[in-house]
C-alpha cells in the first residue's frame, strides 16, 4: 500500500525516534513491563506503523464487505442494513419455565431464541435415567419427547422467530422435534430458520457432551446436511464452534485454528458422502468467543473470515461466494467472568460486546454478571441484553463498516493470527485432519497447556484479573441467585410415565425398529428419526437405539 521510498524514509525516522526520544524516556522511566505479551504468546510492539503492513494489498487482503475474502464483513451493508441478532442463550428447569423466559426475552426486544438444554438431554438420556439423577433441568431445559418441545414453543410462532439450539450428539432428534412442532403450528419446514450446533468434534475436544464414536457421529452430521439442503433450506445445519475451545483455555490463535480445522473435517466428510460443496457449504455457520483483549479479538474475527474464505475457494474449489463466507455467532467469554465483585463483569461484557461488533458478528449472546456463581437471574439477563442495545444504538460503532480496518496494529495482528492459525492447520493436516488429531489427543493437549500457562500467570500476578488477584475487597455472599427447584427431576419423571401410558406403544416400537435397521445400513437417518419423534418416542429411546448400533465414544484421558 505504500511506496518503497517512503517506507525507507519512515524506517529511518522511526529508528531515530527510538534512539533519541524513546531511549531518553526509558532511561528515566522504564515501561511497565519488559515485554508485553498477548494471550496468544506473541509480543505486542510499542508502536505499529505502515512498516508493519507494508505488504498489505487492499484488494487482495481486505476487499469490500460482502466480497471475497470477506475480511471486512460478509454483508455489503453490514449493520447499516440490519443490526446483529441479539440472541440470549436461555433455558432451565421445565419446558413451561423456559417458555416463560423466552416470551419475556422477546418482549424485551430480543430478536432470536437460543435454547439451552440440560445435560441429560444433551447426552441423549431421558430424565428418568440413573445418570440423569441430580442433573435434570440444571444447565438448561429438560426435553424428553415431542411433548416437552410442544410446551417449550407454545405461543411462539416458529415462522417468525429464528431459533438456535445448542445440541450436538442428538442434534438430529431435536431438529426433528422442532420440525414436528412447526408442522403442528401449520408452519412447513422450508419456512424455518435457525441453527443447531451439531458440532461433535469440539465435544471430543472441549465440551464433553459426546455420545457416539467419531465415524457414526460424522454420518449423522452429513445426514443432516443432506436432509436440510432439501427440506429445511434456511436452516444453519451446523455451528462450528471455537467458543468452547477458548473456554477450555485455548489462545485466540488456537481458537481460530482448531475451529477451522474442524470445519475442514466436516466439509471433507460431506464431500466424501457425495454432496456437492456448494449445496451444503452456504449453510455452515460458526460460533466464536469474545474475550477482553479487544483488538486481538477484532483481529481474530477478521483473520478467521479471510482464512476460511481462502480454504473454501482454494482447497475445496467452492464456486458460490456464500460457501466462502464465514458467518458467525459470538458469545462473550464465560471464563473471563469473576465470582468476586460480580458487577465488574458488566464492564467486561461491554468490552467483549464491542469486540464482537467491531469484528462483524452476525449474532451475539452477552453473558450475565452472575454466571460465575449460578444461572443468571432475570435482572442480570436484562442488563446483559441492554449492554448490546447500548452498543447498537448509542456507541456509533455500528454506523460504519469494519471501522478498525487500516489500523496498523489491527491489520498487522489480523495477518499474524491468520498466519499462525494456518501453521496449526498445516500441522493438523499432516496428522490426517482434525479427527485424527483429536484421537491422538494433540488438540486437547495444546489447549490444556495454554490453560495451565494462563493459570500460572494469574497466580504469579503476571496477569491481573481485577477483583480476583488485585483490587480485592471483603465481600458478603451474593444474594438472590437463581435456584432450580430440585423437584424438576421428579416432575419430568412423572411426565414421562404419563406419556408412555398414553402414546401408541406399538407404533413407537415399529418406528424404533425401522430406525435401527436404517442405522445398520446406509440410509439417511433423518426421516426415520422424524417418524419416531412424531410417535412420541423419547429422546432416550431414540438415542438408545443408536447407542446399541453405533456404540459409545471412549474419551482419551489426557493430563
Amino acid at each position: 500500500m505504500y511506496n518503497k521510498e517512503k517506507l525507507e524514509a519512515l524506517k529511518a525516522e522511526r529508528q531515530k525516534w527510538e534512539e533519541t526520544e524513546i531511549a531518553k524516556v526509558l532511561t528515566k522511566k522504564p515501561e511497565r513491563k519488559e515485554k508485553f505479551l498477548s494471550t496468544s504468546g506473541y509480543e505486542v510492539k510499542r508502536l505499529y506503523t505502515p512498516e508493519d503492513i507494508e505488504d498489505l494489498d487492499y484488494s487482495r487482503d481486505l476487499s469490500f464487505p460482502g466480497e471475497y475474502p470477506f475480511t471486512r464483513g460478509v454483508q455489503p451493508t453490514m449493520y447499516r442494513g440490519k443490526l446483529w441478532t441479539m440472541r440470549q442463550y436461555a433455558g432451565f428447569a421445565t419446558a413451561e419455565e423456559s417458555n416463560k423466559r423466552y416470551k419475556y426475552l422477546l418482549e424485551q426486544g430480543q430478536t432470536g431464541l437460543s435454547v439451552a438444554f440440560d445435560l441429560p438431554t444433551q447426552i441423549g438420556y431421558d430424565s428418568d435415567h440413573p445418570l440423569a439423577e441430580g442433573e435434570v433441568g440444571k444447565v438448561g431445559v429438560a426435553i424428553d419427547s415431542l411433548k416437552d418441545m410442544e410446551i417449550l414453543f407454545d405461543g411462539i410462532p416458529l415462522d417468525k422467530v429464528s431459533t438456535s439450539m445448542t445440541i450436538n450428539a442428538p442434534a438430529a432428534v431435536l431438529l426433528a422435534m422442532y420440525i414436528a412442532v412447526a408442522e403442528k403450528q401449520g408452519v412447513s419446514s422450508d419456512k424455518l430458520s435457525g441453527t443447531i450446533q451439531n458440532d461433535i468434534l469440539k465435544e471430543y475436544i472441549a465440551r464433553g457432551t459426546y455420545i457416539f464414536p467419531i465415524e457414526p457421529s460424522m454420518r449423522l452430521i452429513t445426514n443432516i446436511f443432506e436432509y436440510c439442503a432439501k427440506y429445511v433450506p434456511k436452516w444453519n445445519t451446523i455451528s462450528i464452534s471455537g467458543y468452547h475451545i477458548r473456554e477450555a483455555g485455548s489462545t485466540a490463535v488456537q481458537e481460530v485454528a482448531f475451529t477451522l480445522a474442524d470445519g475442514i473435517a466436516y466439509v471433507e466428510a460431506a464431500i466424501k458422502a457425495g454432496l456437492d460443496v456448494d449445496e451444503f457449504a452456504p449453510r455452515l455457520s460458526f460460533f466464536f468467543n469474545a474475550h477482553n483483549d479487544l483488538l486481538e479479538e477484532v483481529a481474530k474475527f477478521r483473520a478467521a473470515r479471510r482464512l476460511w474464505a481462502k480454504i473454501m475457494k482454494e482447497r475445496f474449489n467452492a464456486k458460490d461466494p456464500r460457501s466462502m463466507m464465514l458467518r458467525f455467532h459470538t458469545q462473550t467469554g464465560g471464563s473471563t467472568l469473576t465470582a468476586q465483585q460480580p458487577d465488574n463483569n458488566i464492564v467486561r461484557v461491554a468490552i467483549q460486546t464491542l469486540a464482537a461488533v467491531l469484528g462483524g458478528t452476525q449474532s451475539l449472546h452477552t453473558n450475565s454478571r452472575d454466571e460465575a456463581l449460578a444461572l443468571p437471574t432475570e435482572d442480570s439477563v436484562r442488563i446483559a441484553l441492554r449492554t448490546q442495545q447500548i452498543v447498537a444504538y448509542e456507541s456509533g460503532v455500528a454506523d460504519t463498516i469494519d471501522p478498525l480496518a487500516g489500523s496498523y496494529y489491527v491489520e498487522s495482528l489480523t495477518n499474524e493470527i491468520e498466519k499462525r492459525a494456518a501453521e496449526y492447520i498445516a500441522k493438523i493436516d499432516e496428522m490426517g485432519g482434525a479427527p485424527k488429531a483429536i484421537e491422538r489427543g494433540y488438540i486437547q493437549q495444546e489447549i490444556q497447556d495454554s490453560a495451565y500457562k494462563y493459570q500460572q500467570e494469574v497466580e504469579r500476578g503476571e496477569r491481573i484479573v481485577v477483583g480476583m488477584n488485585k483490587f480485592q475487597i471483603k465481600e458478603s455472599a451474593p444474594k438472590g441467585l437463581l435456584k432450580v427447584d430440585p423437584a424438576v427431576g421428579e416432575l419430568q419423571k412423572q411426565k414421562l410415565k404419563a406419556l408412555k401410558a398414553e402414546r401408541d406403544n406399538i407404533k413407537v416400537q415399529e418406528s424404533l425398529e425401522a430406525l435401527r435397521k436404517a442405522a445398520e445400513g446406509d440410509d439417511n437417518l433423518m426421516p426415520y428419526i422424524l417418524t419416531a419423534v412424531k410417535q412420541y418416542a423419547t429422546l432416550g429411546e431414540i438415542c438408545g437405539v443408536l447407542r446399541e448400533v453405533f456404540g459409545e465414544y471412549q474419551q482419551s484421558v489426557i493430563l
Partner: protein
Amino acid sequence: MNRPIRVLVAKPGLDGHDRGAKVVARAMRDAGMEVIYTGLRQTPEQIAEAAIQEDVDCVAMSILSGAHNYLFPKVVQLLKEKGGEDILVIGGGVIPEEDIPGLKEAGIAEIFTPGTPTSVTIEFIKNNIKRN
C-alpha cells in the same frame, strides 16, 4: 511414611467442563503429588471404587453443572460404606455460597469456588489429609 500424597481428581455426573479439574490436577502434580484423573462422566460409585482401589488420600471433585448437592454427598456416603471414611473429600466449581454449609455437613471438607489459586487447594490438602 514418605510416599507422596495420592489424589483422585474426579468429574462426577454429566458435566463436561474439565478445564478447572485438569488445571488443578496438573498443579497438584507439579507440587509433588501423585494424581489420578478419572476423566468425564463418572458415577459416584465409580469414583468411590477408584478411590479405594487406588488407595488415595484425597478425592477432589469438580462440578460446574449445579448437580453438586446430589453428587458430592453421594460420593462421601459411598466412601464411608466402602471403608474409605478416612479419605479427605474436597470439591470445587460453580457452587453458590449458600450451598456450602450443607455440603460441609455432608462431609465435604472444603469447597473451592472460582478464583481460588491452586496453591490454596494444595495447601489445604497437605494440612488436612488424615494419615501420620
